């Protein structure tokens, strides 16, 4: 199940909220959440829910064993086996087809390509369980004794299918003891509405524009290639950060406090900063668990860096363009590391903004084109000369000019700005607070109306 469906918003969610708040005590509330989380996952993955359960059993057991063995070799072996199993499961279900396809490029090798459908959310919950096992080993968390509670951590539906990657330490205490205050619930519901609006009102509409600009890349001008990739970057931002908003908001309604996953990434001044603002939970995961893995000896600083970016790329998908995408960012971060923070800061701010946006936009082109031939064409077009912009692009941009302006504005911290102003001005604060319910309701209704249209199956093809 995904959040941006009428069935989720108007059937699953109200029933879940009703059951949750009718339940008495944290234990019952946890049971309700666990039940709905498993139902949520099984709704889309009736079979793969067993895989998630298997993963939970393995990692729960590993945690318990690590707790029993303490700081010993047995603990390290247990953790190693658990992490290996997690990665192996991810490898089989996510990467086996890709790996075999590439092996088949070797002359005279013709292995059957496994046709395994990717289980929803496997990348997220696998990283959560890996972080849990390692944290148990490092004794930064206490192994959970209750399988029911551990399973709740793994399967908690707000963050199950699209992140953020929630560390066990984040919710360790709240699993046992939490409250949902009126302000928490109000804030959480608003955040959910905001996330849905970002996804449906902004991202999905931007997607149409991005596809129109990039879909016919062979005939694109340089301006269309740049604009298309920029629009696509915004689409992914509003889509992904929208899902994170929904997850954080739902978590808050249920009394959990998840960390932020996006902090206005396009405000960044360099690529290093971009990744401190974009998909923060993934970046911190790799920073904490992979960057300093001592497999590169004295060169681990740079070796680890490229390993992190290789993994970051391939985590996003089993395709070469994602590998390239990760290493592309790794390269720029490597260069920035060589230049050094102090010298980077001496570069005029305008130049740094232009540089970082150009790198990011071109990077999202890599993300968009899984077909490497088309990706090559895209880069050729980025630097092509000739017509600045085609007629079709002019029409398209004018047809969507208000949407694009709104999207650009919303990449800035507008809400933070309103909050700051309202903290200084009582009338603004009152106006914002009073208008909030109406704004939320209007956004939710608009989102719902647009979702009705998303089930539309128009004539994608003419039939002459």
């Amino acid at each position: 199940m995904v959040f941006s469906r009428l069935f989720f918003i108007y059937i699953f969610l109200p029933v879940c909220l009703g059951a949750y708040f009718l339940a008495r005590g944290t234990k019952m509330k946890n049971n309700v959440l666990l039940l709905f989380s498993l139902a949520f996952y099984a709704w889309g993955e009736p079979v793969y829910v067993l895989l998630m359960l298997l993963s939970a059993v393995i990692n729960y057991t590993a945690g318990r064993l690590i707790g029993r063995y303490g700081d010993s070799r047995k603990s390290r072996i247990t953790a190693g086996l658990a992490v290996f199993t997690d990665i192996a499961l991810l490898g089989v279900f996510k990467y086996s087809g890709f790996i075999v396809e590439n092996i088949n490029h070797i002359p005279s090798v013709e292995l059957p390509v496994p046709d395994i459908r990717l289980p929803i959310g496997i990348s997220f919950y696998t990283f959560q369980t890996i972080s849990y096992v390692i944290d148990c080993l490092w004794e930064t968390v206490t192994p959970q004794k209750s399988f029911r509670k551990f399973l709740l951590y793994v399967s908690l539906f707000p963050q199950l299918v699209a992140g953020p990657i929630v560390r066990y330490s984040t919710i360790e205490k709240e699993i046992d003891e939490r409250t949902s205050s009126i302000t928490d619930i109000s804030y959480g519901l608003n955040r959910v509405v905001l996330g849905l609006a970002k996804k449906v009102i902004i991202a999905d509409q931007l997607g149409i524009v991005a596809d129109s600009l990039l879909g016919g890349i062979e005939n694109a001008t340089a301006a269309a290639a740049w604009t298309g990739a920029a629009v696509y970057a915004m689409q992914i931002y509003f889509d992904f950060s929208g899902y994170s908003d929904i997850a954080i908001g739902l978590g808050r309604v249920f009394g959990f406090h998840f960390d932020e996953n996006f902090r206005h990434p396009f405000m960044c001044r360099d690529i290093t900063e971009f990744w401190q603002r974009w998909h923060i939970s993934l970046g911190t995961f790799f920073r904490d668990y992979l960057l300093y893995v001592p497999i590169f000896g004295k060169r681990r600083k740079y070796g680890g860096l490229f390993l992190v970016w290789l993994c970051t790329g391939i985590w996003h998908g089993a395709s070469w363009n994602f590998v390239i995408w990760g290493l592309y960012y790794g390269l720029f971060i490597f260069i920035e590391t060589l230049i050094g923070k102090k010298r980077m800061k001496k570069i005029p701010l305008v130049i740094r903004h232009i540089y970082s946006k150009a790198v990011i936009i071109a990077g999202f082109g890599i993300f968009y084109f899984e077909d490497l031939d088309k990706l090559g064409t895209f880069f050729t077009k980025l630097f092509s000369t000739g017509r600045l912009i085609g007629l079709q692009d002019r029409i398209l941009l004018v047809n969507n000019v208000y949407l694009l302006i709104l999207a650009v504005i919303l990449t800035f911290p507008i809400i933070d700005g309103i909050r700051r102003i309202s903290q200084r001005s009582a009338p603004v604060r009152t106006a914002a607070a009073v208008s909030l319910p109406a704004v939320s309701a209007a956004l939710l209704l608009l989102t719902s109306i647009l979702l009705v249209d998303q089930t539309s199956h128009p004539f994608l093809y003419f039939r002459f």
Partner: protein
Amino acid sequence: MQTDNKKPGKLLAVVNIITILAVLFGGAAYLIFLPHETVAEDENRRLASFPEFSPKSYIDGSFTGGIADYFDDTVHGRDRIKKFIAADITPLKGRKYGGDEDGAELYGIAFEHSEETPAVTTAAATTAAVTHTTVSSPAVQTTAVTTAPIPAEEPAAEGGEINSNILVVNKRGLPLYPGGDVQGYADTINEYKKKLGDVNVWSMVVPTAGGLYIPSNYKSLAVDEKKDIDAIAAALEGAVPVDAYTSLAAHKSEDIYARTDHHWMALGAFYAAKAFTEAAGLPFKELSEYEELHLHDYLGTFYGYTQSPTLLNNPEEFVYYRPKNEVTVDQYDTSFRDPLDVALLVPSDNMTPSGYYYVFGMDNRIAHVHTKTGNGRKLVIFKDSYGNALLPFLTYSFEDIYLCDMRYFDLNAVSFIKQVKATDVLFSMCTFSATGPNLNCLKADMYK
């Protein structure tokens, strides 16, 4: 939106919660208790039905997925909501290019014809214009309609469907022709002619509305259809080209093409049929010999595809003509079996203003029309859906007419033509079909 404000008034927070929950639970009641829609006429399909449970459907996810699809797809008042979006929300995204009421909107991935592109393009050019849609939500599973009033969904044709992009300008939808395999079409018709010997072989490649109505300042968005039609005519050997373009262009100011649909209007087919019968030296009746019929507030396939507010706010009058002469019509399946006695045009009883096919019938049947012309001329038409509208206007000119859609034909076309003792064969289709993927069907029909 509220952010993590530490001291909001508790009362306002309560009001906020109540407001959002009211929408959530109100929406739930709306979704569950109000009657569910069953048909989407503008999309030509039945909406999702509640899935049947079985162990298999549960395991493969189609049962649970189907429940979500059912609620998402059958929202009460769906059509009105979609029209509200088209009329009142979509225009908020931007402005029409050119600014005024008659300005341009573009849908799809436009193929822009540049100076370097040759006038005679290849099939590969067509593939560049495939509509690419990314939707992160799972697609809704639906079932095709098999009973009236919505026509059955056509099976996918061998050789692919035709993809294009649409320019809406001057309150008219225009398909943007991407060019195609001009020589391939001419070679195919020439091969038919060789195999058919003495049978008269006619080729009438019809322009789409884009070929006639695209304003000069937007011409770079499409390949020139006239150039390709002329190139085809020049490349034919033995087969006779019929110049529908000139006839249609002469009547451009009349309603010869639908503004909201990718087909021509019956009046356009009338002028094209006239050009054909003149070329063939056959009798032809003027419109006074036909009964004029109307469908009001017609919104065709262009609206279905684009949801354009301009098209929604400017529906059109669909005018068609029924010949007054007596004809018998039998419809067969694609192997020319199982005849059904039917009317030439779909009866107007309970007809809703939903589409070209309501009037002219579907493509996936072979029709045999017998007239009292008594001139011994037997015509086989190989066509796309444009050809359906031609049929009524040829009933004064031929004794027998066999209407075959090249995409839905399971026999050897040459053998069929010989079997029915045809004196004439007309290949009539629009430019997209002639030079696009449908050409593969026409080629394949020779070798079945």
